[in-house]
């Protein structure tokens, strides 16, 4: 496995674990964790690495705690988009949010982490 893929998996699991351990309930905590994601040192960073971490984190979260189909259907009919649309929108918004905050954090502070971990 390529080193960046290892980091993507490790990053996703770290994000999930931090979510679970901190019992993330508040938006502010979520945003804080997204910033932490930006500090994960990835060798040979590419633009898609952080979205990939975010995407994987979302999918693992949903796999661990699947959304209630009735809730999805109902939300889909109220909003109105279909239930798959609700799920897709949810993943999309979460991924973009994590990625943007993480990339911004990385842009400002990522160098520090890389120096710290000597990458």
């Amino acid at each position, binding site marked *: 496995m390529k080193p960046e893929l290892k980091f993507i998996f490790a990053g996703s699991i770290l994000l999930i674990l931090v*979510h679970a351990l901190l*019992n*993330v*309930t*508040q*938006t502010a*905590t*979520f*945003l804080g964790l997204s910033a932490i994601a930006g500090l994960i040192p990835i060798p040979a960073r590419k633009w898609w690495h952080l979205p990939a971490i975010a995407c994987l984190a*979302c999918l693992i*979260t*949903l796999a661990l*705690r699947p*959304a*209630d189909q*009735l*809730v*999805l259907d*109902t*939300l889909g*009919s*109220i909003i109105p988009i279909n239930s798959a649309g*609700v*799920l897709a*929108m*949810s*993943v999309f*918004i*979460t991924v*973009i*949010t994590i990625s*943007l*905050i993480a*990339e*911004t954090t990385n*842009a*400002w502070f990522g160098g520090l982490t890389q120096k710290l971990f000597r990458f």
Partner: protein
Amino acid sequence: MIKKILLTLITGAWLWLLFYPWSGIPRLGKLFIITTSALKIGGVDDYAETWPKNPFGESTIAYDSLGVPHIFAPTEEAAAFAIGWAQANDRLFQVEMMQRTVLGKLSEVAGERALNRDLFWRKFRFEKLATEWENQFKLEAPITYQQFEAFCAGYNAYIANMPFEKLPIEFHLLDFKPSKISPQTMYFLVRYMAYTLAHDPVDIAFSATKALSASDSLIQLYFPHSGPSVVPLFPEKEFDFKALLSPTNFGNTLSTPLSNLEPIQDYKQLGSNNWVVHGKKTKNGYPILCNDTHLEIAYPGTWYEMHIVVNNTYRHGLAIAGSPYIVSGFNKHLSWGMTNATWDLTDYYVLDWKDNNTYFVDGKPLVAASFTDTIAIKGQKPYVKTWQESIFGPLDSINGQYLATRWVGVLPSFEAKAFEGLAKAQSVQEAQKALEHFWLPAQNFVLADIKGNIALTTAGYAQPKPLFARGIKNGNTQNALYPYILLQSQLQSNNPEKGFLFSANANQVDAPNSAYLGYRFAPSHRSRRINQVLLANNQITELDMARLHADVLDLDWENLKPIIEKHIQNPKFNTILQGFDGNFNLENHQATLFYQFKERLLALLIKEIHPALPLWPLDEVMYDLCKKNDSLPNLKGNLFALSPLFNQAADSSLAFLEQKFGPNHKQWLWGKYHQSKFMHIAQIPQLSPPPIQTPGNQRTVNVSSGKDNTHGPAMRTLISMLPQGAQAQIVITGGQSGRFNSPNYNNQMKDWLQVQYHQVQLPQNIEEGYFKKQITLTSPH
């Protein structure tokens, strides 16, 4: 550097987009980001993740297969805490809405569309009044007050332990957090029910109707003191207002033309049933008590079933979520049920204004108090309103008139003491004593105890008036302030000779020369039918009583059959109705035609009386007049012939049904025509089931009423008072849970439609295997 700044700007813009409270939609960040989104909402077992300690003692909430909580606690306070927690788990959004309605705070979460509703409530200043009432209650009944505080603590503990993402979906869609409750919430709930049951704009429509008529005798003809076939609840009583009122208590009413007034079609009104049968009329020799309250069949329903065991003493029945008390139910010794007294307890006044703040009463100037209110509106600037308050009540624009409203809802009341007393009462007499504390909104209570006694008691504030006081009053004299009087024990009947008692929102007394208590008593059909069935049977069983709950015989058929036989010339119409028995079963096609006929006939008659009549006479008054006359006068005194109207109603009914369902009249099934619409309380169609075929109509014991048939028996109880205790059967509309994705959201609907019940189990302990789930709220000590 440019990349850093650009990224920061894009991220900032994205977050602003996600978390800005755009008007009309929930914040996308909250609704869709996975950690906080509605995707995490669970079902019925979605109890808070951590259960709070019960500071009042260890208590257990055990849920049966229908989601009914059975609460076992060592003290009343510990039980109250657990009840609060259980109600929050099942009915959080419902309590939130009721509280916000009375406080006039709906706009804060629902936006401008709720502003008019908020303005209606704000003028009464219940937030201020409740503080005064609470202080008084705390002094007068400190133990009851402590129990209510414990209830609120349990409810609030649930909120504190429930993360936002797991709150009911309504909070996600409207994007707000639930409010805590306090002992004042009880007052708000009582006012909410008082609005439903005892706030009545009929005086406004009555004055507008008077303005159209040249003669008082015509008004008296179409709007008599009581209907033609009243079966009074207390036939032996004469309720004499002269004994209760000063002779100077007479104000003038006004004939006031009003614009934009929606006609009040009284024949659409709702009502409830209750009755109690003495052991001498039942097959097993023991009393049977029945109750069904007609309310909006919303999702979730009004009623919340619960079983409470404190120190091996139990009570069981139906509560209104947001309060720890059983409103209709039973304990080991006593059962009780209620219907609305249906009195006119709202007065409107036109004041003699001289300038913005001065008005004249009995020739003297009075200065109106004023207060300013700021109403928060979601997504908009707050709305600021300055109110004026007179001795006749707050002033508001109502149908284009600036009127003062005097409403019984602003009077203090302490129903908690009455319900606490009922829960502990061991006899009918003790229950009647407890009901002296029941003040608002006035109700007819039926009672039965295991010693074999039965009783009917009407309790609450009454406002006896002379008949001419119907209508908007002239606020130029203090004599127009008709006092509200607590009835205490003036209207009650115990163990009557006939062996049964009942109420169906009918007149308590039939005394045309005595007090006017109300105009909107229910038409007599249901009370006559209940009376008829109970009189005819001296070996009554539980099955007979269940059949009476399910009864769909419309007594209008008796009234109108002679008219149809005498006047209708359309052979097809007459052939179809041949052999009709008046029953409104789902499969009956004759019922559909008869219903069309009577509705159309009433509309034609009203149109002849006046094309824009603000208040419709009762249908039974009109049909009775049709039976006795060949012609009737319109409001100008000109006569119109009735026979052509009968035939027009028959012909147009046939034409309508042929067009709607085709020429084969066997296809005109009542169930196809009559479908009830049961809406979610926030009017979210996706959370409401599709329309349901329902039997009966507005005039049958198994009632279905309201515009779009949105109302019906929101619950049914059938209780036998055996020597060893109560044996009860209950059903509610919808289900116990207010969570739309819970299996208990809609699981009683099928039984309710078929008038089936569930047998109430009365476990005294937490038995193995009976309960589906148990939650123990441990003591911190």
